[in-house]
């Protein structure tokens, strides 16, 4: 509707001018800064408060932790992005008796029924974490499709402690989260939840019922 566009913009341009508003000064909020170890504590506190589960792992043994978790919890099929760094590491670590690792490598249309009705868990890496509120930052794309962290009932996410930023603003600034590397970017702080019935919290409404963070301690010293 080009005429709608023209008309709307003309109306907006015809509006009375207003005085300029000085650029805001965010320095009042600048004191949200923590040490790397404190960031881990804060992130866990924030995310555990909304039922996120944590598995502690070392840089070399995290794939084993993920596979053992799946075994323990009876997850038969774990979906992953076979071309992502984390996905490759997991595929390499699988041994007989471990759950089946299902590569997400076909367009969803060929795979939708299994995705919705069979897969027990999805595994993704993360770009960074947010200490202030708790939260994981993801950038789904060709290597890790969008629905990997949404449709399966359990989402397992790999987070390296060294990638936790102080705030969401810092993550945007320092890591360029959401600035356009991928067509989708996500902040995830816990399993799907709702409070629409009498403000009573219930988990697992539409997205994953469980969020499990594999927290890799890669802090030096």
């Amino acid at each position, binding site marked *: 509707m080009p005429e709608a566009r023209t008309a709307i913009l003309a109306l907006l341009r015809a509006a009375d001018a207003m005085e300029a508003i000085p650029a805001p000064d965010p320095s009042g909020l600048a004191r949200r800064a923590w040490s790397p170890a404190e960031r881990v504590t804060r992130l866990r506190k924030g995310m555990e408060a909304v039922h996120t589960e944590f598995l502690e792992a070392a840089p070399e043994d995290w794939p084993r932790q993920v596979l053992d978790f799946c075994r323990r919890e009876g997850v038969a099929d774990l979906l992953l992005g076979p071309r992502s760094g984390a996905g490759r590491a997991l595929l390499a670590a699988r041994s007989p008796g471990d759950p089946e690792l299902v590569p997400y490598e076909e367009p969803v249309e060929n795979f939708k029924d299994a995705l919705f009705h069979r897969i027990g868990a999805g595994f993704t890496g993360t770009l960074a974490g947010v200490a202030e509120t708790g*939260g994981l930052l993801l950038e789904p794309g060709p290597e890790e499709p969008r629905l990997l962290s949404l449709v399966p009932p359990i989402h397992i996410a790999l987070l390296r402690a060294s990638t936790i930023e102080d705030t*969401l603003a810092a993550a945007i600034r320092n890591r360029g989260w959401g600035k*356009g590397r991928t*067509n989708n970017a996500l902040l995830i702080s816990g399993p*799907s939840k709702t409070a*629409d019935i009498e403000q009573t919290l219930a988990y697992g*409404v*539409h997205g*994953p019922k469980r969020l499990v963070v594999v927290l890799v301690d890669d802090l030096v010293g």
Partner: protein
Amino acid sequence: MQIDGAHPDFRAASARALLDPQLRANFRRAMDGLMAKRAAQFPDPADLKAMRDLGTAIRARSLLRLPELLEQLEASCTRNGIQVHWARTCQEANGKILGLLRTRGATRLVKGKSMVSEEMGLNHFLEANGVEALESDLGEYIIQLDGETPSHIIMPAIHKNRNQIARQFAQKIKDAQFTEDVDELTAMARRVLREKFFEADAGLSGVNFAVADTGTLCLVENEGNGRMSTHVPPLHIAVMGLEKVVGTLEEVAPLYALLTRSATGQAVTTYLNLIRGPRGQGELDGPREVHLVILDNGRSRIYADPGLRATLRCIRCGACMNHCPVYTRVGGHAYEAVYPGPIGKILTPQIEGVGVRHDQLHGSSLCGACAEVCPVRIPIPEILVRLRREATHDDPGSRVEGKGTGRTSAEDLSWRLWAMVLRRPRLYRTACWFATRFRRLLPADLPLLKAWTTARARPVPARRSLQERIRKEGLPHA
């Protein structure tokens, strides 16, 4: 939008709502909870002030550059593969969306929560045209089952308690057993809606913030139904009011922090979903097409007046309703409008006309609780007062929709009488003499006095007027 096409009558609907103890209890409990949770998120007043200053400045500066930002948004979205459409009216927007669905043979639409789509009456319009439009936000799903509209912009089913919802689910969901267990009720909805996401031809969502420089649509949610609606079906249509645009993603971070804390007392929601485009090169999922519909529906008229423009700063957190003594008592449906509560009281009359919605302008004690909690400092009471005047005055400078049409002959007559008496000192003194001498005899059901005395004690004038006493006793310190 009016609920059933009848002339909206806030006064009558409020009176009815006040007589419903269940409704009042449901709202009281919910609003008390929301207020406490919000307060817990802002323990430091200095910090809250800094956050509000920042949020207010970001929104005000975005509005200052609104036409440029919208053009930039359009260019960025187009570059990313999001197709942008403009609509002056709800009819235009609805028509556009139906056209998109029809061309693609889509008959099953799943919806994430969108207040703009409520404003457009989209569901009714699509159903009437053979498209199933299913709400997937749990609260929206609950009220859609009953053919109701939201009573709160964040918690649409807050007027219902669990027993009411349990009975409704048992009745309307196939194979459902009666249960009041919230987890089980949630699981029932999940079961039904998962299949709907699975088979949907298209998804529709609102937009919390649209980022101009990167062409990104930001969606804030807890349930994941927004992600389902925007990433599973092959077609995603997003609708937004034209005021939702900001310059950069950096500006979204502080607004998001204010939104979640003010709305539900959460430091962070489960999901913040940034959509920059449809399924790209090498991607295995995501919609094949993404469309953005930018709706005006009276917003450009509000924008035209710098004094009213602050209305458009709103980030739809709902804190003003949670803290409003009127909203808490009468509930959201009494407003018979898409946006209830304080923000609705200034928004609805500006969109639909101050005459048609005159009652709403006066359904406020001007206590200022709304302005005190508004994260972007919208001066709701000041705007209300301005609209009250312009509703009854056909000022040449005013661009308010329906200005002057709220005037009634009774009000007109009483102001004339008032002016006549005050311009004539002898008449004024005579009136005072009668009022003070026969003060207890004033009938409580005088035409205008009655509006006051139906719910309050009859005012009794003093024994002597001030003027009379000064004349007799002199001024003690003069």
